């Protein structure tokens, strides 16, 4: 089977992160498909995988052919795709198709069939089941199209279960394994971490790890709650490179540096996966980190991409609905943990836009105060996903069925 994966980078690393993880997952299958990737931003790809040459017009990577979407490198892509016509094309997140590929697919002189699959964004909303595997249309009867939706429930395409993440998850299931992951992460940060303010007062390996990878906002409330929590439990915040790092550091400085904070360099995807698997509580955004945090089974706060009319709250509520069955009844401590978590999610996501001055009414401390109940609920939720379908394998099965 030959598969071409298309990816346009819209929001930093989320789009390419999913495309890259999908490619790795497909290549790990028995009798793996031959892959070609067409990407518009090699620099973002290179940040996730240092083996990518961001300046090359095209290249071979892990046995895949990697081409540029547009610009000068696109001519080489067109040449390659004319020599070997596309049969199955995966459009990540309805990213569309480059003009040169459009010309090849819809060439009126060619009568070979092809298939396009629109791999949509992850959502917990019920429509993920309704739309999954639904037929779609193009202007040619020779170019068929279908929808494919990831999701958290049966009846969707599931989540990508790539080997690297699965190994990190497996390792994190034991305390010894988690410590090993943490040592590896700390080693990557180098000796400089020892000089971080407050680091000498806690055991970095066993501290309460809180990686922060979200959008810009005023983190004053979050930092204040973490500071209060840190008084009784050694806490290490890890600011992931990117949009939230500066805002988080500012709030932390203004609060008097109440716990150690480490600025993470931009990590390759597999290294970031290990941090999420080894942490205690994460703040994550978007899709790829969201899905990893969910699979990791560690409590987390998800920040959804802001949409017009605060539509992100619909998506957040849908996710909370998926989490709810894994917590106890209202009167129980587990139920109270969920109630605090729900309030935190809704307050943190209730915004029209992202900016350094974006404030919310979020309260993290009540959530952290019920951490054991939270850990149990997220663990159960993760276990329920472990039985879910692997998106890569399910996608190939689907392609075999309809091709």
């Amino acid at each position: 089977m030959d598969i071409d994966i298309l990816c346009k980078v819209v929001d930093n690393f989320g789009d390419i992160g999913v495309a890259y993880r999908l490619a790795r997952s497909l290549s790990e299958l028995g009798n793996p498909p031959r892959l070609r990737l067409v990407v518009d931003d090699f620099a973002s790809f290179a940040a996730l995988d240092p083996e990518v040459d961001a300046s090359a017009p095209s290249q071979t990577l892990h046995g895949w052919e990697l081409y540029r979407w547009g610009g000068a490198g696109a001519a080489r892509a067109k040449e390659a795709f004319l020599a070997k016509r596309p049969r199955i094309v995966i459009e990540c997140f309805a990213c569309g198709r480059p003009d040169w590929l459009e010309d090849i697919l819809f060439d009126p002189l060619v009568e070979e069939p092809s298939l396009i699959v629109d791999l949509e964004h992850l959502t917990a909303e019920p429509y993920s089941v309704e739309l999954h595997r639904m037929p779609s249309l193009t202007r040619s009867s020779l170019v068929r199209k279908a929808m494919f939706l990831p999701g958290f429930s049966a009846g969707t395409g599931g989540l990508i279960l790539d080997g690297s993440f699965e190994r990190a998850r497996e390792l994190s299931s034991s305390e010894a394994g988690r410590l090993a992951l943490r040592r590896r992460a700390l080693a990557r940060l180098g000796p400089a971490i020892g000089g971080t303010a407050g680091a000498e007062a806690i055991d970095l390996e066993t501290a309460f790890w809180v990686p922060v990878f979200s959008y810009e906002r005023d983190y004053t409330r979050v930092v204040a709650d973490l500071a209060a929590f840190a008084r009784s439990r050694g806490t290490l915040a890890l600011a992931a490179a990117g949009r939230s790092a500066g805002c988080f550091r500012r709030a932390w400085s203004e609060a008097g540096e109440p716990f150690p904070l480490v600025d993470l360099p931009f990590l390759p995807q597999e290294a970031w996966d290990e941090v999420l698997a080894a942490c205690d509580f994460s703040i994550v955004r978007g899709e790829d980190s969201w899905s990893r945090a969910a699979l990791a089974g560690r409590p987390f706060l998800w920040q959804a991409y802001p949409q017009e009319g605060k539509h992100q709250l619909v998506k957040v509520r849908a996710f909370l609905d998926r989490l709810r069955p894994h917590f106890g009844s209202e009167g129980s401590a587990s139920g109270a943990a969920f109630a605090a978590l729900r309030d935190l999610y809704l307050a943190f996501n209730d915004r029209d836009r992202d900016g350094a001055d974006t404030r919310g009414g979020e309260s993290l401390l009540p959530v952290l105060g019920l951490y054991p109940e939270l850990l149990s609920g997220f663990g159960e939720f993760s276990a329920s996903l472990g039985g879910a379908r692997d998106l890569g394998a399910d996608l190939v099965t689907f392609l075999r069925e309809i091709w």
Partner: protein
Amino acid sequence: MVVTSQLRTGSVFKVGNDALVVQKILGQKTGRAGTVTRFRVKNIVTGQTSDVACDSGEKFESVDLDIFQMKLSYIDGETYVFMEQETFEQYELTKDDLGDNAGYISADDDYPIEITFYDGKPVGVTPPILVERTITYCEPGVKGDTSGKTFKPATLDTGIEVAVPLFCEIGTRIKLDTRDGTFAERVK
């Protein structure tokens, strides 16, 4: 070319050599990458219907259509009979052919309706953007609530259910936007 986001009930577009008419918009979902719309489409030539989902950017060939203004003469069960006002020639369309638009029109209406013809055959209708309909059932109105921001379900004289503001009563005449079936205003 026409893109998915321009398609409405009654729109006709081509897939290969086949002309498809949109019978119903079954739902939409909005994500960061745009909107995915679920349609019920009918192949005009074979009569076969199917449900499909399209992302907002997909492009289709538009179709050469003839459009005539007619009036709905009468409804006989599932058959809608339209009359051309100059020649008095009659054309029949089924309720399925009209799709969602069947809920917007009635033989009592005074205004003309666009009938779309493909290859000499009527295939769909396009009502005016705003049509007037009468509420035949809803919960009692709430006096003093004229904000129009809170809605309740109401059944119209054509049998469809729409959302109307709380101040509406049985017998209230309203204007509906036929592009999406939303309440536009109360007829004064």
